[in-house]
């Protein structure tokens, strides 16, 4: 404990003491303790009927001089029942505070009001500060993984700024953004990934439309409400947390070693030649030299390093009756396993609440986050058009060793000169994304008469994202800007400014119609405006000696500047009116009705307004007399709700054809060799009739608590149907467009959710709790007015043939993957070898796809029996959307004189889906007949069909006439092929240059993940007293420690497609890591 920190503490306490009044006659001193006998620091001691008060010190002691006449002191502390003690004539008093059961009944934010959890009428899940605190993460969303039933949190990949998707009950829309609405302290934000986890008080997820209807427009996919920590009346709390962690890649994909790779290349080189004296890796006998050679392990080079992560945060909060405050600062610094990948984030937040008087109060919040991410993400980079060339895919397929080219002789179709190894791509690219967000919220609450509350709130927010990227000449391959192959600098900005105003009036009444009823009515109005601008500034064609990033960034004047591009979006405006009625009788019968009308500037004047009504009822059975006899039932509530919500997440400007100025990318005429700007119209066919997408949710739920709440939880069954799906639909491409946004079709999601918490042991010194949640969701496309029954994921560009891999059809589910059925490979005996070295099938059939027949070529099932593999042979292969998801965990604590040990373990799981292992598929054949690419290690020569006779090095698959002669005719070749390939598991990759999506590449993605394990140790307070600390906890956490799965790729929790209709594809992903973190938590 440093001297400095101590001083800070004294200063803060002294500051608070200033609020206390001057000295008078009677002085009372004493001590305040909590129910366990520990002294309470910072409890408020007020003299009743006056503004005179003090707070307890580090040992719970206080001294107060009375000024008023009541001679009564009021002791208060957060989470405890206020106590009033008569001190008339006493000079000393000891108080033992009691926990406030009522206060502990958590409050849940629903819309523009909060209710006690026990009074909830809708389906809501909650995660609180404690749960988040225990498991340190850099990204809040990650902490939610598996914690809430019906809320599926997926970290799509391992990059530092990976998008973390949240799906509430499967998501309704099949093509639009399915992410829920995020509300932070009352205002909508685009993401919660940049909030410091230490700032979070609670996260509530509203799941049924009845709860979300108050958010109308945007609540169709659920609402995630984040409430940040506020200052609390009472003592000053200073919290300090620090963590340090390491991470390491979990898994690498096995690829062929230099020897096996060399043999494969030899096989490609030696086709149709009698003697290959030299392939690109030497003659057959020379290949043996490759044995044992390490070669380049690109995966290791790119993401083999140990990542580190450090975080620290400090917060100070406290307050008096008038002023409450919370100020915090947090920092995250992360270097991931990926070469050159870094994340830094600083968060500052300040919250103030000020009560002018009994009827007027104001609150203010300032939040700033500044995040800087360096390094490349996975998939397609800014200057690339296809993920096939991304570093993440090249890490698998790039040749482990370079060919021997002594005289520059090379195959013109497979030139190495045009290839850049992934290490060069990564080290030759500098990408820095800075995101500065700041937000100012201001609210005023006026309570002029009893029961009436007027509230007005303003929020202003800036979200400025700046991407600075530079490519050295060597990494600027396949650039879509000018001058590929030379240095390139691209500056992009994406700036948003949001202004929101909400006004509500609330009327609360008790005994409104009946005795012991409660009535709340709310009327509100809200408007929101978002301004967005984008710019792009591109510098190309640097001279070659500009070979460092600094040189590129600092010398834009030597480069050619393309016409800078900027774009101002039309203002996105939303205007809303809403009302809510809450009525409760005897805490038994609940009614909650809401209605909201939203007008959106994205739709035409006739379709602008959406109306979203909802109603919920609940019945707390356990309060009924007839239930009292079942003493073991402590709580039983039945909930019923129905409601609607909307979705308008489409771009503005789709209602009519509009012309825009040309961009820096994309084709352009160069009259007289100068890029000429022009006007172009939008990419999508216009549609003036676009309207709101609406979701109707029906929900039946039960909240239960048995044996005094030792077992508690909830169970919900729901049926969501989404109508007028807003969707980017394919149109006949002879229209000149590929897509049009349209309202069409309906989907439904049906499922149930179960959450159970069990207090297994609750002893004074030892406690053990368990929690479990499971949810089941099944999606169905109930109506679809589209022409196109397939969607193409096109995940690897033209590498893979015949996409049309996802069937979108009425009555089907989302994520139905179609393809061919793999049926082994052709053996030499199944084919006939002609004297000209060509293979034919005896009955003229061809069960391979679109290629020439060779022994060792993969075969597919000819379902329609026409002797050929065509579109008609496509079959349903499986579904890529999981049906069962959830998590379970235990936490325990063991209290002793030497401190408290806490431990928790948490698993999450997902069942019922398959993933298309695109990495495996795209690296399993002679892709596009381009030589010099590596394959996965399943194609090691011992395991696969080969044409090369190990004895002679001659190619028997594409035999030269002399080869056939040397083997004594075609029978000799066939029998030798059979001999060398007896028992081989895999096909010959050299035999197929065209690959299709087949069940071979589909793998079960069920998994059980040991998401986190934490062990913590808290020092006993008795020890801390001496060093004036409230709490010291050290802990150790492991993340993603194990994942039990049959899936062979990096990780089964993956989906790379940006097209929501094509989920569950794994290709060119960023591998996930396993991390270990040590942390320290201090409370002053």
């Amino acid at each position, binding site marked *: 404990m440093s001297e400095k920190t101590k001083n800070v503490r004294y200063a803060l306490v002294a500051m608070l003491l200033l609020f206390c009044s001057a000295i008078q006659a009677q002085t009372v001193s004493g001590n305040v303790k909590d129910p366990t006998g520990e002294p309470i620091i910072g409890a408020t001691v007020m003299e009743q009927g006056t503004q005179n008060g003090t707070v307890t010190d580090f040992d719970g002691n206080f001294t107060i001089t009375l000024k008023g006449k009541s001679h009564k002191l009021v002791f208060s502390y957060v989470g405890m029942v206020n106590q009033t003690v008569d001190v008339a004539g006493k000079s000393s008093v000891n108080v033992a505070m009691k926990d406030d059961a009522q206060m502990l009944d958590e409050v849940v934010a629903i819309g523009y009001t909060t209710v006690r959890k026990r009074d909830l009428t809708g389906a809501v899940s909650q995660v609180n500060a404690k749960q988040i605190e225990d498991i340190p993460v850099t990204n809040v969303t990650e902490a939610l993984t598996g914690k809430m039933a019906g809320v599926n949190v997926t970290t799509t990949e391992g990059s530092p700024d990976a998008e973390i998707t949240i799906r509430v009950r499967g998501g309704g829309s099949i093509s639009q953004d399915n992410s829920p609405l995020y509300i932070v302290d009352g205002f909508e934000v685009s993401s919660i990934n940049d909030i410091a986890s230490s700032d979070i008080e609670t996260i509530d997820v509203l799941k049924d439309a009845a709860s979300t209807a108050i958010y109308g427009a945007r609540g169709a996919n659920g609402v995630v409400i984040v409430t940040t920590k506020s200052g609390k009346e009472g003592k000053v709390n200073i919290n300090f947390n620090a963590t340090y962690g390491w991470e390491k890649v979990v898994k690498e994909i096995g690829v062929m070693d230099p020897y096996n790779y060399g043999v494969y290349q030899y096989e490609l080189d030696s086709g149709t030649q009698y003697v290959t004296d030299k392939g690109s890796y030497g003659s057959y006998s020379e290949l043996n030299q490759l044995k044992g050679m390490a070669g380049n392990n690109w995966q290791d080079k790119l993401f083999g390093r140990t990542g580190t992560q450090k975080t620290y945060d400090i917060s100070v909060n406290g307050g008096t009756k008038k002023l409450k405050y919370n100020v915090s600062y947090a920092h995250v610094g992360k270097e991931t396993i990926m070469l050159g990948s870094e994340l830094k984030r600083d968060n500052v937040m300040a919250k103030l609440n000020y009560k002018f008087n009994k009827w007027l109060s104001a609150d203010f919040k300032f939040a700033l986050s500044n995040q800087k991410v360096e390094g490349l993400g996975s998939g397609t980079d800014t200057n690339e058009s296809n993920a096939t060339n991304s570093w993440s895919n090249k890490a698998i397929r790039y040749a482990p060793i370079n060919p021997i080219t002594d*005289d520059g002789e090379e195959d013109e*179709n497979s030139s190495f000169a045009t290839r850049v190894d992934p290490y060069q791509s990564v080290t030759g690219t500098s990408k820095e994304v800075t995101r500065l967000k700041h937000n100012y919220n201001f609210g005023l609450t006026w309570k002029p008469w009893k029961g009436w509350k007027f509230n007005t709130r303003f929020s202003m927010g800036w979200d400025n994202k700046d991407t600075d990227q530079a490519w050295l000449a060597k990494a600027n391959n396949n650039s879509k800007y000018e001058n590929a*192959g030379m240095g390139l600098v691209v500056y992009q900005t994406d700036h948003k400014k949001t202004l929101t*105003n909400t006004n509500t009036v609330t009327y609360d009444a008790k005994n409104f119609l009946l005795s012991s009823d409660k009535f709340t009515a709310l009327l509100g109005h809200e408007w929101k405006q978002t301004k967005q601008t984008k710019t792009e500034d591109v510098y190309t064609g640097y001279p070659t000696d500009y070979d460092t990033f600094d040189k590129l960034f600092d010398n834009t004047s030597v480069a050619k500047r393309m016409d800078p591009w900027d774009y101002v979006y039309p203002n996105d405006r939303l*205007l809303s009116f809403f009302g809510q009625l809450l009525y409760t009788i005897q805490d038994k019968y609940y009614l909650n009705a809401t209605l909201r009308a939203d007008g959106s500037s994205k739709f035409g004047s006739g379709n602008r307004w959406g109306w979203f009504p909802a109603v919920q009822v609940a019945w707390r059975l356990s309060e009924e007399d007839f239930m009292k006899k079942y003493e073991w039932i402590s709580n039983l509530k039945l909930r019923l709700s129905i409601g609607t919500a909307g979705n308008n997440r489409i771009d503005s400007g789709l209602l009519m054809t509009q012309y*825009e100025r040309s961009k820096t990318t994309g084709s352009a005429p160069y009259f*007289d060799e100068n890029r000429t700007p*022009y006007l172009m119209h939008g990419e999508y066919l216009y549609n003036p009739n676009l309207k709101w997408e609406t979701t109707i949710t029906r929900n039946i739920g039960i909240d239960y608590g048995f044996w005094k709440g030792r077992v508690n939880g909830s169970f919900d069954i729901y049926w969501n149907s989404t109508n007028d799906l807003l969707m980017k639909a394919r*149109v006949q491409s002879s229209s000149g467009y590929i897509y049009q946004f349209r309202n069409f079709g309906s989907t439904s999601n049906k499922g149930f959710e179960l959450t159970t918490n069990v207090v297994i042991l609750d002893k004074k010194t030892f406690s053990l709790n368990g929690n479990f949640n499971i949810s089941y969701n099944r999606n169905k496309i109930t109506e679809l007015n589209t022409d196109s029954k397939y969607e193409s994921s096109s995940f690897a560009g033209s590498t893979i043939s015949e996409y049309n891999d996802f069937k979108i059809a009425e009555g089907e589910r989302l994520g139905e993957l179609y393809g061919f059925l793999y049926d082994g490979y052709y053996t030499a005996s199944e084919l006939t070898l002609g004297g000209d070295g060509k293979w034919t099938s005896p009955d003229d059939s061809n069960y391979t796809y679109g290629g020439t027949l060779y022994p060792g070529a993969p075969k597919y099932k000819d379902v329609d029996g026409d002797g050929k593999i065509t579109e008609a042979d496509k079959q349903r292969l499986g579904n890529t959307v999981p049906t069962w998801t959830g998590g379970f965990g235990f936490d325990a604590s063991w209290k002793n004189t030497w401190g408290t040990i806490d431990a928790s373990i948490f698993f999450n799981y997902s069942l019922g889906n398959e993933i298309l292992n695109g990495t495996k598929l795209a690296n399993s054949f002679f892709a596009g007949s381009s030589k010099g690419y590596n394959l996965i290690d399943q194609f090691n020569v011992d395991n696969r069909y080969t044409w090369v006779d190990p004895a002679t090095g001659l190619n028997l698959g594409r035999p030269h006439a002399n080869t056939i002669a040397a083997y004594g005719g075609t029978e000799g070749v066939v029998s030798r092929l059979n001999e060398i390939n007896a028992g081989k598991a895999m096909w010959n990759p050299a035999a197929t240059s065209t690959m299709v999506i087949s069940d071979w590449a589909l793998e079960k993605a069920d998994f059980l993940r040991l998401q986190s394990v934490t062990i913590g140790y808290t020092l006993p307070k008795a020890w801390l007293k001496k060093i004036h600390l409230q709490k010291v906890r050290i802990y150790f956490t492991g993340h993603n420690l194990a994942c039990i799965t049959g899936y062979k790729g990096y990780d089964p929790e993956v989906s790379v497609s940006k097209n929501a209709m094509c989920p569950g594809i794994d290709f060119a992903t960023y591998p996930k890591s396993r991390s270990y973190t040590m942390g320290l938590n201090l409370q002053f």
Partner: protein
Amino acid sequence: MKNIFKTIVICLGAFALTACSDWLDTTTDSQLPESVAFNNVEDIQLATLGLYADLCSDPYIQLQTIHQGAGTDCELIDGLGATATNQNNERDGMNYNASVSWTKLGTLWEKQYKTIEDCNRIIEGVSRSELKDNDAVMSATAEARVIRAMVYLDLIRVFGDIPFRWDAANSDLSNINQGKTDRDVILDALIDDLENVVEENKLPWCDQVSSEHVNMGFAKGLLANICMTRAGYAIREDNNSRAEEGGYSSSKKENAGYIKADYSDDNFKTLRPSDEDCKELYEKAEKQLKEIIEHGTHDMNNSFAGFWGYINKLELDPTHESMFEIPMGFGIAGELGYTVGVRMNGATKDWGFQNSAGKLKTTAEQLYSYQPCDTRRDITCVPYELKNFDRTPNATPIKDYTFLKDSVVVFEEGGEEKQATVTDETIIFDGEEMPVITEYGTAVTAESLVKNKPFALYIGKWDVRRMSDRWKQQNKSASLKFGYGINTVKMRYPQILLWYAECLAYKGDFEGAAEWVKKVHFRAFNDAKQSYTGRSPIEDKGDFEDELDAATDFESMLDMIDLENRLEFCGECFRKWDLIRWNRLHDNIWAAKMAYVKGSTQDDSSNALYQRKIYFKYKDDAVKEIEQNGKMVKFFYAPEKAIDWSSATWYGVDGTNKEKGEVPNNTWFNDHKYRYASSTAYDEGTGKGYKYPGLGKDNKDFNAQSYAMNSFGYETYDSRELDLGSICSGLVGSSTKTVDQFDEPGHVKNRYLMPIERTVMDSSNKRLYNSYGYPN
């Protein structure tokens, strides 16, 4: 309290303000609604420029321009042997084995239709505008109409009958959801529309606007070409119910008086319109072509090489030989020079990064089709690549030249006085910069003959050595591919002349026709008298002029036009469309294959045109001798970079010898100063032997291989059976053994059309279907 009321007032104010529905109407200056854009002349012009942006994308970068034009008797895309199995790629696709999943076909379709829609939108938008009679606006819409016609024609060439739309797409899809339209209906509509464009006369000629813009000459040429295409042969749909209904089935066409070609499929018939209709169409074409010629804006560059110099340098030819070229951007677009052109194998010292693939190839047969003095031969057929050699001169390299540094030396060469400027590492001779060889092992970028690859000759019309300094500079700094920026020439003036000749021949004016063919032909000869008999392997032609004069019927004149077309346009991928309308595509490819079989057959020595070995010399200019201060200084620079093609023994070692495989004796080598395998050092006394630098250090395979190269007659299994069998196998079959025409059961004869790609068909919900035996 006051403040509170204020707040309430503000809130109510905001409420009142926002309740107004206008607040939800938002616009931005970054977007112009059509109603605004089409009422402003500048915006209309800017939108028209957008059409050129469409043209500068995939179709005219390579899909249409290179890939789809390949697959003729002299233009092939790489699909030989093992690489000819990729049906989802141009390699086998352009062997006429395209698969419905070849995604580039989908891209071609989508992009071309995007251009059509963009044209339609402008034309329709302007028709509603108050500005529709403004001259500048009419000129802009005329450009859109010509571009639309060009794109429709190109789509029809690739796919046959296709959906046809003349108006902008409706949001309710009412005019989008359509099936195929009879291509004759489309072509007729295009002819009408272009006739109006020409009539309205709002388009400028090339003397007022650069040939990078659509101009009157091109509009007329395109109109003529569409008329001739309409009059030509085309494979038609069989009698399926939809084609019957649409009126474009073979039987409907035959009933309408169409005439079946000699070479035709029985179901999918190859037909042309009746003689009467053809006559009318040819007349229309003739009128336009004549007007172009008479207008005089367009002409041929005096030199064939000179024209290609402009193209490679990204400059516009002042004679407007190029009628319309698509303005590709340097450094961003353009595959010409990369996908087709002289190949650099590996990074080269002189030209930088190996920015070339040379995927489009021509054949040995094409090389032999030229008369030896035809200047087009060595520009069109490139049997070598550019490559770095680590050459070690055997003569003493210059070490002591420092006394010449930074000085200008005057010397004499060939009776002329020339200047040489000597700097640290280079010597500039007569404006040409050469490195000074000061030490052994200096890399040299030289022409290196490719060995026995009779079907893989590069096309030298696009040649890095002819590119601009800017290109060279950039390519030397580049380490990866970048766009060459070479404009795609859509129509060349010689084409107009040959079409005009065809029109004249069609109406029986053979003398007139011959005149225009000659004009094209003799441009390629430095001296017209040199136009003596070439050695066309198809048959030994007599004197070109005699042949031409002897052509007094349409078919024989067409033979001459066909040949001239081949000599002039090989590699430019124009040829296929003419061959198709003449219905000669199949026959010509077959003939070219057979010509190779015949010319490379060893046992028939009289026909053994293709040599087994080629002997050649590098150009003699590798040494400069300069007298300075009474001292002879030898500069060795750029040794053996360029082959002296006149020395190549394409026709045998003594110029008359037709025998293949004959190895001349050493006397022959010495007499002709050819280098031979066991190199003899140059003897100053006798003047014999080899005296130039560039000889391999240990006389290893270097000289043996590069001075006597296995050539096209060197028969191996690879080239003859496998490669020859792969070429255009979907059209002419894969057998080369028997001189049978492609007539296998289950195959559609004469199917040069491409299938409609899978996703395109899917998006049409079965309104489109694949015909000609392609799977649906």
